[in-house]
């Protein structure tokens, strides 16, 4: 097991999956008497698309919140690039290079698309406040440089036309896309997507799947995503973790997972005859 962690391998469709980037070890998370996550371990490898699936209430979002630092698990630990992570605040974890989107859109409603994505560049901007106040030298240069990066993301996501529109006025599908753009702007090493396709029609789902694959392909970003649409999950993910009632019931390639009887039971129900 251990030497496998440092190996790379090539997937059937020709992409290289690297060594383990993040290892989640024996996480248990309780809210009072309710056990949301029970002794779950899995890993995420460099460059892969890792799906986390499971029925409602399985603990998927809680898992992302643990990785993010919103929840602090009672037991277990998280290793990022081989180092055990101490107790950290969400903004410190963001500075390590982990970005995410939310299940319910969490955009900055009062700001334009451009400003939302520019805010995603926060950790890449360093000019001191007094220089920003004078809009002088370093601050202005930094603003322009980051604007160029943001414009590339806007081009990539094909949202040029809504650059200056307040995001509150955008339709749902575009808001999801802007949120992805904001997360991408941080140039994350690991990108967490919480139901990126929830509530979308087939066409929007196709667009979003394409963007996710392109992000992974062009920027080499490692992606962990929660999704309910099994078709999409089977198509785009390299490996899948299945959770049910806070336990892990399956882990492997999409084909392996879908053949797992326990997974079939969790999704389709068990016959009691």
């Amino acid at each position: 097991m251990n030497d496998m962690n440092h190996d790379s391998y090539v997937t059937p469709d020709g992409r290289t999956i690297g060594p383990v980037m993040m290892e989640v070890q024996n996480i248990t998370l309780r809210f009072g008497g309710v056990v949301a996550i029970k002794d779950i371990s899995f890993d995420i490898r460099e460059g892969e698309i890792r799906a986390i699936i499971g029925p409602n209430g399985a603990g998927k979002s809680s898992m992302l919140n643990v990785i993010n630092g919103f929840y602090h698990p009672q037991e277990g630990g998280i290793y990022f690039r081989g180092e055990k992570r101490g107790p950290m605040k969400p903004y410190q974890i963001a500075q390590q290079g982990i970005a995410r989107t939310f299940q319910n859109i969490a955009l900055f409603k009062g700001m334009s698309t451009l400003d939302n994505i520019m805010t995603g560049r926060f950790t890449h901007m360093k000019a001191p406040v007094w220089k920003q106040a004078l809009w002088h030298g370093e601050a202005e240069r930094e603003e322009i440089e980051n604007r160029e990066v943001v414009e590339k993301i806007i081009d990539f996501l094909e949202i040029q036309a809504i650059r200056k529109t307040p995001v509150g006025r955008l339709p749902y599908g575009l808001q999801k896309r802007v949120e992805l753009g904001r997360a991408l702007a941080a140039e994350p090493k690991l990108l967490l997507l919480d139901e990126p396709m929830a509530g979308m029609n087939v066409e929007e789902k196709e667009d979003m799947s394409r963007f996710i694959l392109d992000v992974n392909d062009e920027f080499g970003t490692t992606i962990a995503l929660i999704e309910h649409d099994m078709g999409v999950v089977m198509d785009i993910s390299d490996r899948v973790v299945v959770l049910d009632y806070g336990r892990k019931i399956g882990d492997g390639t999409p084909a392996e997972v879908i053949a797992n009887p326990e997974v079939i039971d969790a999704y389709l129900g068990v016959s009691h005859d």
Partner: protein
Amino acid sequence: MLYREAGDYKTSYTDDAQTFPIKLDRWWYYAVVFVAFCIVPFVLTDYTVNAIMLPFLIFAIAALGLNILTGYCGQVSLGTGGFMAVGAYATYKLMTAFPDLNIFFIVILSGLITAIVGVLFGLPSLRIKGFYLAVATLAAQFFLVWLFNKVPWFYNNSASGQISAPERTIFGQAVTGPNAEPWVAYLFCLIFVFTLAWLTRNLTRGRIGRSWMAIRDMDIAAEIIGVNPLRTKLSAFAVSSFFIGISGSLFFAVYLGAAEVGEAFGIQKSFLVLFMVIIGGLGSIFGAFAGAAFMVLLPVFLKIFFVDTLGWPTDIAAHINFLIAGGLIVFFLIVEPHGLAALWRTVKEKLRLWPFPH
């Protein structure tokens, strides 16, 4: 027909990020600045300065400050009067302790002292939000007023408990004290207003401004992007209090000349500035000016109309003032909850298409 961006192409991100992207706006802005600096000082009378210009400029600074905190960062504050008092008393102590220090630096130092006090009272903002934070800042308001009343050191043990500004000059012209010329006082305040408005614009369009708005709009998403909530909120408190301290300093030293803390910096000042920000428009620099103008000018116009034109007795006119001002505030908030700035924006968007709306 003139007012539109068609044909006004931007070829660099610097051009695109400028404050007034539309040409007519830019000219309009230059014209206003020119008139304010080069023409108004020559036509001022004692009355216009003391009744209109000084209160407008000084409250515009306070409204800018509160707008940074409430409009941009989303932290409601009812402590504005208290923080203005800190600026005023800091100015008084500095003026009397260092008679040779230039009044310009005294005003800025007073702002810095207020910023420190503001950060202290901003500390609870990490834990409490919304109405509860408003109540916590209300505590700041009452505590500060009580403190300046209670401790004689702040008013140099004067028998009346008042503070009064001695005469200070810049380039040989008296800025404070009874001999100050109206145009000098006006220009002195105008320079602060102009500079602080420019600083506000730069701060709010840059990294720190975006982090303030991120905290305001969705604090969880802001954290996930790497924004440290405590530091961001405290920076908003610091910058906001700096502005409010400067306005309190000017209010006392240049406008009032002498002040008693409960009367000059009571809770009604906090509400006055909050109304300015709400009526003008939260999160808008133009709104801060529009709100300050509205709240300062409305009573003056109403008084001119009722007392000077219709010849009503002053006390009845004063009461009617309250009624009309209150009614207008409610009316504006119903018609446009986002304030005069949003109204202005709508007018501009209409103008862009005028006279061919289709």
